[in-house]
């Protein structure tokens, strides 16, 4: 657990709802790192611009964040290395000698974090016992001295601050047990629940937490995570494992997906079920490795040689990330196609407190049609629905060929057979439930069309708008392919004013909407500075249209 994570866990355990958003540069160590926790009395799905309590560990933190401070914001800082003289009046200053406290307990400089963490939790009224538990859980496996040191420093920070007057107090809004989890980990959790036992991939920000999750739990849960030589091997090993009957996934970002593209076509041609998670970041090329963007939509929709159907799920929040991980394998296996989960840095690496995941009512694992093997078994038999009963390697003698093949799986260049096979792959009637999710007022002044991670900030903007007397409706697309044409067309037709909000410069989703519905949405809010959408900015945009 990082210091930031411990802060939000402590708030969550106290009964508040939390949302964490972190920013960090593409460096091994150093640079300006921030961790923002939003603490609220209701479920929250996005960060906001205004900071109510700033823990400034250095002068940079003041310089870079002074414009984000609320009028009465609190600032926790050590006067030894942070100067607050130039700040406007009205702020609540909470000086604390972090370095002196650490020195008193002969701790390392890094323990200033622990003192500051504990001091700020004291300010907002979190019980020390919660901090104590977190420290024990977090450092318990290490040297007992480390636990002791941290506890001493935490206690000192807590005692120093606990009687100070502060306007920020934690709300104990729920007694329910919650979990604080990131989008990436939620996808991985859904995948594990869905029987995915094999992940092969190459680390790439911001998707790497998925490989770490599988590696960490591999021995206990009966999984294999193979860190391969490159993304090409990553996707291919997953195809091999799937061919042998194990639900398999590769996870990467846009750059790694570029390397996987040829093999995506292999999965399609051999009709090997495959799940890919693509967590976007700003491109082209290396782009902004640790920042966010939604510019790989068209890429994942069209990538690979040839024509073939695929499913693309674009979760909008933590629950939908779990849902995507849970459902993607069913779609991949039922239709024997690639299913892609498209997320991004913002959703993938942000943490939200949610109730522990439950599988939806009626959900079950659907491995699709598994063949009863007889001597006349044909792996690529032409069927009415295009899906041929599957065999796993070891269960039957059959060929799976990247060349065009006949019903037996043997190589063919025959024109008639080619036509039949192309049509067989194309005609699969893919059914994805609840592709569009609608929120807000039916009589709305403005209808926002979004997809993927933009959902959270739009829902938060909806709350802000209510206070301004503006009614917003959100039409959020969870499944981009197969595209929910009827739903989107109906909502476009009934919208008083339609707005598209997405995180890329090319208005890619707007283009997709136009392609499928024939409707050009005029008002577009596009963002491509690497930062996520903020509810305040969304509201401002809506007020102006």
């Amino acid at each position, binding site marked *: 657990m990082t210091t930031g994570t411990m802060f939000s866990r402590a708030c969550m355990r106290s009964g508040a709802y939390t949302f964490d958003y972190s920013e960090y540069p593409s460096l091994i160590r150093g640079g300006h790192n921030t961790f923002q926790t939003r603490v609220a009395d209701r479920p929250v799905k996005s960060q906001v611009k205004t900071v109510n309590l700033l823990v400034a560990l250095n002068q940079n933190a003041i310089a870079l964040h002074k414009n984000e401070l609320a009028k009465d914001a609190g600032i926790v800082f050590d006067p030894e290395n942070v100067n607050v003289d130039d700040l406007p009046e009205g702020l609540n200053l909470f000086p604390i000698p972090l370095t002196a406290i650490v020195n008193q307990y002969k701790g390392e400089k890094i323990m200033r974090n622990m003192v500051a963490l504990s001091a700020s939790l004291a300010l907002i009224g979190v019980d020390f016992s919660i901090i104590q538990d977190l420290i024990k859980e977090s450092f318990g496996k290490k040297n007992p001295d480390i636990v002791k040191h941290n506890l001493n420093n935490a206690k000192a920070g807590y005692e120093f601050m606990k009687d100070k007057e502060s306007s920020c107090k934690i709300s104990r809004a729920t007694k329910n047990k919650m979990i604080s989890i990131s989008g990436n980990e939620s996808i991985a959790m859904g995948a594990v629940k869905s029987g995915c036992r094999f992940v092969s991939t190459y680390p790439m920000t911001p998707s790497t937490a998925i490989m770490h999750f599988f590696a960490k739990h591999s021995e206990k849960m*009966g999984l294999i995570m193979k860190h391969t030589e490159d993304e090409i091997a990553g996707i291919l090993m997953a195809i*091999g494992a799937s061919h042998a009957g194990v639900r398999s996934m590769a996870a990467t970002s846009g750059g790694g997906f570029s390397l996987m593209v040829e093999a995506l076509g292999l999965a399609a041609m051999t009709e090997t079920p495959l799940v890919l998670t693509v967590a976007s970041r700003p491109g082209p090329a290396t782009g902004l490795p640790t920042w966010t963007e939604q510019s790989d939509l068209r890429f994942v929709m069209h990538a690979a040689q040839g024509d073939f159907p695929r499913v693309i799920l674009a979760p909008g929040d933590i629950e939908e990330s779990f849902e995507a991980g849970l459902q993607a394998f069913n779609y991949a296996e039922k239709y024997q196609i690639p299913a892609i989960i498209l997320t991004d840095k913002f959703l993938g690496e942000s943490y939200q407190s949610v109730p522990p995941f439950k599988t939806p009512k009626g959900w079950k*694992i659907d491995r699709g049609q598994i063949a009863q093997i007889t001597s006349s078994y044909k792996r690529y038999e032409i069927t009415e629905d295009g899906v041929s009963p599957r065999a796993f390697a070891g269960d039957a*003698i059959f060929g799976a060929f990247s060349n065009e093949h006949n019903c037996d799986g043997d190589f063919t260049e025959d024109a008639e057979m080619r036509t039949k096979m192309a049509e067989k792959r194309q005609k699969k009637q893919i059914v994805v439930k609840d592709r569009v999710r609608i929120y807000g007022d039916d009589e709305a002044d403005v209808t926002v069309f979004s997809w993927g991670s933009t959902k959270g900030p739009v829902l938060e903007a909806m709350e802000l708008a209510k206070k301004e007397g503006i009614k917003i409706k959100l039409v959020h697309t969870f499944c981009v392919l197969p595209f929910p044409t009827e739903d989107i067309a109906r909502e476009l037709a009934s919208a008083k004013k339609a707005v598209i909000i997405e995180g890329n410069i090319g208005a890619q989703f707007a283009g997709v909407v136009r392609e499928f519905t024939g409707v050009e949405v005029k008002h577009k809010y596009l963002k491509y500075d690497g930062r996520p959408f903020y509810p305040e900015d969304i509201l401002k945009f809506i007020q102006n249209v």
Partner: protein
Amino acid sequence: MALKQAVSELQLDPKNTVLVSGIGCGPKMPLWINVSGFQSLHGRTLPVASGIKLANHKLDVFATSGDGDAYGIGTCHFIHAMRRNIDMVYIVHDNQVYGLTQGQASPTTDKGTHTKSTPFGVIEVATRPLSLAIVSGASFVARGFAGDIPHLKSLIVEAHKHRGFALIDVLQPCVTFNKTNTYQWFQERVYKLGEDYDPTDKMNAIKTAQMWGDKIPLGIYYRENRPTYNDELPQIADKTLREYGVDNIDISELMREYS
């Protein structure tokens, strides 16, 4: 032909035997032999074969490529598969030319050779794949000759008995596009490594693997016993990954870590 005979001599269950190939001339092999086949992309044979073996280590996995597939476009996978020592037999049909694309130089084409892509002669020196294999960590490295099927068959049988990654480079003249390295050219040069050759001597094996030209050795250049990749995974010690199945997986313990 040699593989067919080896499969029959080893009495492998064809259903339980998977032959993974790439793209090129050799990789059409799954068509000619009665086992289960998976044809991957050009250069991408080994990762698919590795995935299959990791998912179900009870399968007998063979992989086959040409020299362009294995030592050209697939080099990165080749090197790392050998480090991993996943238990499989990899047969490379080395004809020193790209045949399927009508006769370009391959990584094993000798310097100076004239081909369609090198009308003035190959500028690079040729790869010596067996020494690359030994230094990369392959635990069984051998060379056979398509002109001596019984010997090649015996190499495949030995390779299959070996636990770990076994490479067999097969000198297999391309009668259409390689007019230099012909059956006759090889017949004048190949000889079998004798009883006195010690395949466990790694440094000597590297030296032997550098031999090319007037004398080309056939046989097992190098072998070592070390745990396979699968041996190192306790989660598949008692059952295969596939045998774990997909039903009733409890994630409540995993969620507790986020509370």
